C-alpha cells in the first residue's frame, strides 16, 4: 500500500474534491428524487449481503455448536442429579400413596365392631412362606402380646391364626392352609358348620347341619365355637355347589379376605372370654 501511496502523484485536494462531489451528488440526487439511486444500494447489498449471510451462518453454526455441545458440559451431571431427584420424589410419592392406602385400611380396621372381644394389635405382613404360601409372617410377636392360637383378621374377614411366635415376629396360618379349620355359621340361616382349608385358593365346607338350603353367594361367618375366632366375623362366600360326595354336597367357599394381598392385619392379643355359643337348634330363628 505504501508503494501505491508513494506512486500517487495527484494532490490530495483533488481526490478529496472528487470524493466529495460524488458523495454530494448522491445526496443531491436523493433529495431531488429525479434519479433512482437504489441501484447503488442494490449493488452494495448484493455484494455485502452474501458475506453477511455467510458470517451470520458461521456465527449461528458456532453458536449452535456452542449451545448444543460445549455449553452442555455439566448438563450430564445435572441430568443425573435431576434423575436422582425424580427417583427420590417418585419414591416419596409412592410412599405417600402407600401411606394413604394404609390409612384407609387402618380406618376400616378401627371401624370394626370388635371392641367386645378383647385387645387387638395391628401388625404388618412382612413375609410369606415361599414354599407353601399358606402362612405369612407378621411384625408383632410375644413382646406385643401375641400368642399362639390368636386370631388374625382384616376388615374384610378372617385371615388365620397364630401358630408360632417369637419375641418380635409371628407366623400366621392362613385359613386356606390344609391344616386349618374354622367354625362357621351361615349368615342367612344361622346353621353351623366347619370349613377347612384346601391348600389352594378356596375353602371346603367340611360339615354343616343341613346343606339343602345352601345357595351360591351365601356368606359364612365365624361361629366362635372353635375358641379361636370371635363370633360374627366374615369367613367367605359360597362360590360353587357341587354334587353330593359322601354325606354332603361339595361346597367351595371363597375367603372374604384377600389373602393374596395381605399388608396389615389385626391380631387378637386376648382370647375372647365370652363366646356366644349358638345353639344349632335356634340358629335359624335367632339371627
Amino acid at each position: 500500500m505504501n508503494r501505491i501511496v508513494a506512486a500517487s502523484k495527484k494532490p490530495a485536494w483533488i481526490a478529496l474534491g472528487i470524493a466529495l462531489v460524488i458523495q454530494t451528488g448522491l445526496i443531491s440526487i436523493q433529495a431531488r428524487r429525479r434519479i433512482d439511486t437504489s441501484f447503488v444500494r442494490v449493488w452494495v447489498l448484493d455484494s455485502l449481503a452474501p458475506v453477511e449471510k455467510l458470517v451470520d451462518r458461521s456465527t449461528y453454526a458456532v453458536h449452535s455448536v456452542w449451545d448444543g455441545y460445549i455449553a452442555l458440559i455439566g448438563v450430564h451431571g445435572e441430568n443425573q442429579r435431576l434423575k436422582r431427584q425424580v427417583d427420590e420424589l417418585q419414591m416419596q410419592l409412592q410412599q405417600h400413596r402407600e401411606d394413604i392406602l394404609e390409612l384407609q385400611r387402618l380406618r376400616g380396621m378401627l371401624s370394626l365392631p370388635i371392641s367386645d372381644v378383647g385387645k387387638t394389635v395391628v401388625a404388618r405382613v412382612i413375609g410369606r412362606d415361599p414354599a407353601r404360601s399358606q402362612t405369612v409372617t407378621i411384625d408383632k410377636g410375644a413382646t406385643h402380646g401375641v400368642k399362639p392360637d390368636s386370631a388374625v383378621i382384616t376388615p374384610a374377614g378372617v385371615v388365620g391364626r397364630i401358630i408360632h411366635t417369637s419375641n418380635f415376629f409371628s407366623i400366621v396360618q392362613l385359613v386356606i392352609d390344609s391344616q386349618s379349620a374354622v367354625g362357621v355359621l351361615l349368615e342367612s340361616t344361622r346353621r353351623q358348620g366347619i370349613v377347612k382349608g384346601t391348600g389352594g385358593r378356596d375353602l371346603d365346607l367340611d360339615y354343616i347341619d343341613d346343606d339343602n338350603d345352601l345357595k351360591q353367594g351365601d356368606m359364612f361367618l365365624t361361629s366362635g365355637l372353635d375358641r379361636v375366632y370371635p363370633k360374627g366375623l366374615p369367613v367367605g362366600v359360597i362360590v360353587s355347589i357341587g354334587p353330593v360326595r359322601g354325606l354332603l354336597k361339595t361346597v367351595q367357599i371363597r375367603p372374604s379376605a384377600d389373602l393374596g394381598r395381605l399388608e396389615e392385619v389385626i391380631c387378637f392379643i386376648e382370647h375372647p372370654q365370652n363366646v356366644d355359643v349358638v345353639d344349632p337348634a335356634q340358629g335359624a330363628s335367632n339371627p
Partner: protein
Amino acid sequence: MTVYPMARTSTLGIIGKFAVALVAVVVIQGILSFKFKVFGYFDLPLIFSVYYGFTLGNPVASIVIGSSLGLMQDSLSAAVLGANGLSKTLIGFCAATAGSKFAVDQAITRAFALFLFTIGDGLLVTILGLMVGPASGATYSGALGGWALSATFNTLLGLVLFEYHDRWSNATT
C-alpha cells in the same frame, strides 16, 4: 513504463487485502449491531478510517478508504446514501492530514481525535439527513447524548484496536 508481473501481483494483492479488510469491517459492524444492541453505539468504519488516516500518512488512500467504508455503511443502513460516505471521506482526509503534521502515536491524541471525529460524524450525518428530508416523527432530542455515548465507546474501542494493531504491525515487520 515497464510493468513487472511480480510487482503487479503484489500490488493487486495489497489492494485485495485492503478490500477484504474494508468489507469485513462493515460486515462485522452489521453483524455485531444485529446480535448485540449495545454494539450499535460503536462505529468500526469510523475507527478504521481514523486509524488508516493516522498510519498511512497519505490523504488520497485515506479518502478512498473512508469513502468506501462510508458508502458501504450507507448501503447497509437506512441512512441517506452518501451521508456516511461524505462524512468518512472528510474524516479520512482530516486524519491523514493530522497524522502527517502531528504526533498521533500517543493514546491521549488518538482518544481526543476519535472523540471529536465521532461527534463530528454524527453531527454531519444528521445534518445531511435533515437536508434530504427527515423521517416523519423523527426526534433528535437525544442525539447529542447518543453521540457522546458513541464517542466514548469508539474512543475506548479505538484505543484498544490501535494498540493491538500497532503491536501486530511491529511484530510482523
